[in-house]
């Protein structure tokens, strides 16, 4: 029987290795896999490349990984927010590398990795500093920049409900980067609020089919160490 449900956040991230690239879903305060991030922090893998829209605010979530100096590089569109103190401190020290990517290009590069597309031509950023050094092409009179697929070793994502096959549905705007990231990593781990019986999720409304998901951990299961 296919059963992708794991019994603890800690065990679900225990395979993350030093130097891994880790996608983390979420946007603003919405759709972050906070318990998986905390489990990753406690796991303590170092030299990580984090791929996420933001670079964390305050002391929690992604910021906690930065605070513990586990992150060598961050790939994101909007690192600087009110409260992004750990990112700003490490950036000033030269202790973290930043790859700044326009948000739509970030999402599309992640989708491309999941879809087997090697690269694509986007008009976004054409003629700007963020296209410097990149291949360009004029197609039907319009300028485009070549961007390549962005895969990862691990994706930590957040959904609302799952089943044992790994099918996922989300809550409102909590989707954000989670569905494309689910497709783009060698190992996809989903944090969910609850697990339903196989067949209870409406097949017309499943956003992430289970084929993209390797492990599911639900809130209320054995949590991370306090």
């Amino acid at each position, binding site marked *: 029987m296919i059963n992708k449900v794991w019994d603890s956040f800690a065990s679900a991230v225990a395979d993350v290795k030093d130097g891994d690239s880790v996608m983390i879903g979420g946007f603003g305060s*919405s759709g972050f896999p906070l318990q998986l991030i905390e489990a990753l922090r406690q796991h303590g893998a170092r030299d990580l490349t984090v791929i996420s829209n933001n670079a964390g605010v305050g002391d929690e979530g992604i910021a906690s990984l930065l605070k513990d100096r586990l992150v060598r590089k961050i790939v994101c569109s909007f*690192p600087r927010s009110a409260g992004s103190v750990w990112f700003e401190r490490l950036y000033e020290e030269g202790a973290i590398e930043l790859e700044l990517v*326009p948000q739509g290009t970030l999402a599309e590069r992640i989708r491309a990795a999941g879809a087997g597309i090697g690269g694509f031509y986007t008009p976004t950023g054409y003629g*700007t500093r963020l296209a410097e050094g990149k291949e360009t092409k004029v197609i039907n009179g319009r300028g485009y920049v070549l961007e390549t697929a962005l895969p990862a070793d691990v994706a930590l994502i957040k959904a609302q409900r799952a089943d044992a096959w790994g099918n996922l549905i989300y809550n409102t*705007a909590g989707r954000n980067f989670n569905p494309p990231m689910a497709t783009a990593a060698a190992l996809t781990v989903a944090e969910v609020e609850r697990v339903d019986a196989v067949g209870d999720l409406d097949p017309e409304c499943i956003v992430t089919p289970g084929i993209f998901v390797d492990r599911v951990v639900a809130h209320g299961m054995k949590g991370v160490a306090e």
Partner: protein
Amino acid sequence: MRLKPAEIAERVAQDIPDGAYVNLGIGMPTMVANYVSDDRQVIYQSENGILGVGPAPAPGEEDPDLINAGKQFVTLLPGGAYFDNAESFAMMRGGHLDLAVLGAFQVSEKGDLANWATNNDTYPPAVGGAMDLAVGAKQVFVIMSHTTKSGEPKILESCNYPLTGAAVVKRIYTDLAVLDVTDQGLRVRQLHGDNTFDEVQALTGATLLPALS
């Protein structure tokens, strides 16, 4: 005379057509929604994955996941829909939005937009969805103060801040005037209050064309 930010937003709102799909940038652009008249139905997109963004929820009614691009709690109108970021930016980049209203640091007479970075390299940059919106929306309106706090022009022959997009802005709404970006150059569309052409020209770093009569 200079309009207050809310008054500029009100002026932009007059030009948003009934039935339009619109993305409002963070900050002053977000205020525009407050002034669209009730006889027009406008569908707002939020880049994090919402079409049909509604007003702020009543206190205690917030859905923690339901925020707009500015991280404010919002609601969904009946008829709205959710989607992920790859789909949201496909929608933006693919030319499906009728209009984006964006803030700006600088705009050039060719419609070049600079709204994501200054020349201060010690400060870490952030770009978000600005570049995608700039190239994707069918029309880009800019809403901003005409000059910097120290009185320097923000409308220039060419931007000296890094570009967000080249030749993307269609119209500029400031506290002094409304300007159209045309093939001939920047043309005054409206002077606010008793402002004269010469007064506005003096605070603009590019040559203006007078309003068409």
